[in-house]
């Protein structure tokens, strides 16, 4: 009998991949600091050190502490991020958390709508040959349309119906999210083997019963990777949908105002915050998948 202690899956993965990931992250950090010196040097020499006697240590220190650098150093971004979150009350537009919440609202609303739409469409497509042949090619073609180009159109149409604020951004996020869910669910709903569908047929199961008891459970392993892709796509959609409205609130709006006013560090903080938001949402989906499919793994 094998009595060796087995590590859990997370610990094993960390052990195998922890060291390489840490090394790569340290390398990226070093390259970032080096690039910051290289790219900021000219501006530092021209502006900050113009009339002074400077050594290379002064130059390096200055390039890492400029007010409007070409490439901010990691610690500058971290300080700005922390200051923005803790230094201002939560309802102030200078607090990055406010913008994050605004973007997250539209993202999650669009994600939920997109997932529901994707589920309904995939069930319809699997059960109707007509829809499968007529609709699915157009759904695939629709993703070749850079839907972010349609954002202004959607905003105008929904604005005329009196819907503004979260609704148009959620619609655009929904459009980006429904496609991966639809394609994955169509594949998943068709994944049961013929022997299983025939067995349900011998039990005189209706289509609804076959859907509920066989196809939907079989499609779950296909659904969750698509949910991860879908939530990331919803985030992109929500951020870009904020741009045409003239940049009022949200992380995309923050990026736009930062680029208008030349506030480099503000742009980078918004970018890092949006990256963190994307990672948190994707990790949430991965956690959900682990929770729901936990019993299957043990089987």
């Amino acid at each position, binding site marked *: 009998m094998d009595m060796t202690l087995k590590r859990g899956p997370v610990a094993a993965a960390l052990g195998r*991949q922890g*060291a*390489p*990931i840490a*090394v*790569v*992250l340290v390398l*990226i950090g070093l390259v970032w600091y080096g690039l910051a010196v290289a*790219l900021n040097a000219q501006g530092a020499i021209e502006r900050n050190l113009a009339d002074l006697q400077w050594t290379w240590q002064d130059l390096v220190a200055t390039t890492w502490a400029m007010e409007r650098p*070409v490439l901010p150093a990691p610690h500058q971004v971290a300080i700005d991020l922390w200051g923005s979150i803790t230094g201002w009350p939560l309802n102030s537009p200078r607090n990055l958390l406010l913008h994050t919440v605004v973007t997250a609202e539209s993202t999650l609303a669009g994600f939920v709508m997109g997932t529901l739409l994707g589920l309904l469409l995939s069930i319809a497509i699997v059960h109707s*040959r*007509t829809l*499968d*042949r*007529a*609709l*699915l*090619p*157009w759904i695939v*073609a629709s*993703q*070749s*349309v*850079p*839907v*972010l*180009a*349609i954002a*202004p*159109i959607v*905003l*105008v*149409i929904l604005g*005329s119906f009196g819907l503004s604020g979260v609704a148009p951004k959620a619609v655009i996020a929904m459009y980006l999210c429904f496609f991966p869910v639809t394609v994955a669910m169509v594949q998943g709903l068709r994944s049961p083997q013929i022997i299983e569908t025939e067995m349900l047929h011998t039990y005189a199961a209706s289509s609804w019963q076959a859907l509920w008891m066989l196809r939907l459970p079989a499609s779950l392993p296909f659904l969750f990777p698509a949910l*991860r*892709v879908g939530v*990331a796509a919803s*985030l*992109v959609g929500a*951020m*870009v949908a904020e*741009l*045409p409205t003239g940049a009022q609130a949200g*992380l*995309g709006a923050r*990026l*736009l105002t*930062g*680029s208008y006013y*030349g506030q*480099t560090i503000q*742009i*980078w903080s*918004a*970018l890092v915050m*949006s*990256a963190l938001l*994307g*990672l948190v*949402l994707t990790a949430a989906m991965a956690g959900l998948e682990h929770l729901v499919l936990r019993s299957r793994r043990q089987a």
Partner: protein
Amino acid sequence: MSPTGTGGVATSAMVVASFLLGLVFMFSPLASPAAPVGALFWTLTAALAALVAVGIRRVAAIRGTGSGFYASMTAVLFGLWILYFWQLLVVAAEVPRVLLPSPALIVASLWDNLSTLGRDFVQTVVKAVLVGWALGCSLGFLVAIAIDRMPFLQRGLLPIASLTSAIPLVGVAPIAVMWFGFEWPSKAAVVVLMTFFPMLVSTLAGLQASQRLERELMHSYAASYLRTLWSLRLPSAVPFMFAALKVNASLALIGAIVAEFFGSPTTGLGFRISTEALKMNMTLVWAAVVVAAVTGTTAYALLSRLERRVAFWHPSVRGRK
């Protein structure tokens, strides 16, 4: 075996009859903007829609070996009838042009602004998208080959590269504008960043895709690393690379157009869309969107054609109609 299914004559008659009835209805006084949209109009529209639905259903039900043509025909018919009902309802109900222009107006706007849209197309697609896509995919490919023999770096880089797909990379557009200026190089830079990681991850996955049996065969032939790479592992990686190339094509188009939202010279599809939308010139916005959509679909079709010629041996390509 020729296609079978529901009776061919009845189906063709139904499709042709719906075409003729549709034409008659659209050019009749009932569907003109002057006539009020009442119960008669809606009844006739619903009847035509029912006829069309039954016809499409019958075409979709055709099975058999030659039925691939009829499958595409179903999709084409569906698209044409959506356009028809769009035109009919928008004209008859006198929907304002800024809200939803009719397809005829969009085509007219496309025709009138052909030179402007042509210049925008060159600025966005030919310059930013093509250059960025080619550069980003090549870089991803080269980096994958470079770290192919360093499993330590791969284990460290792959999770980070996969995580970047969760990050909205279009957010680097303002930074790219700051570094590379307003012109197309900054948009190409955004596209390079967006296409690099999917290509890297897919090429790495493809390089691992060759089976152990095949690698041992090459070893038994005393094949060097480079020979194995060239003759076995790269050809095995080609289907994975094509999947990444196709995904990157649409990512590149989206990236270039969105990057133009953040500032660009006075040409470009993204610039055209954002400025004309602010001017409420929605027909031109739709025309630019049509140009972008046709570009995206054509790119996907071209890549699929190329894949069918290069990776003809792979099951995913052989199984296609």
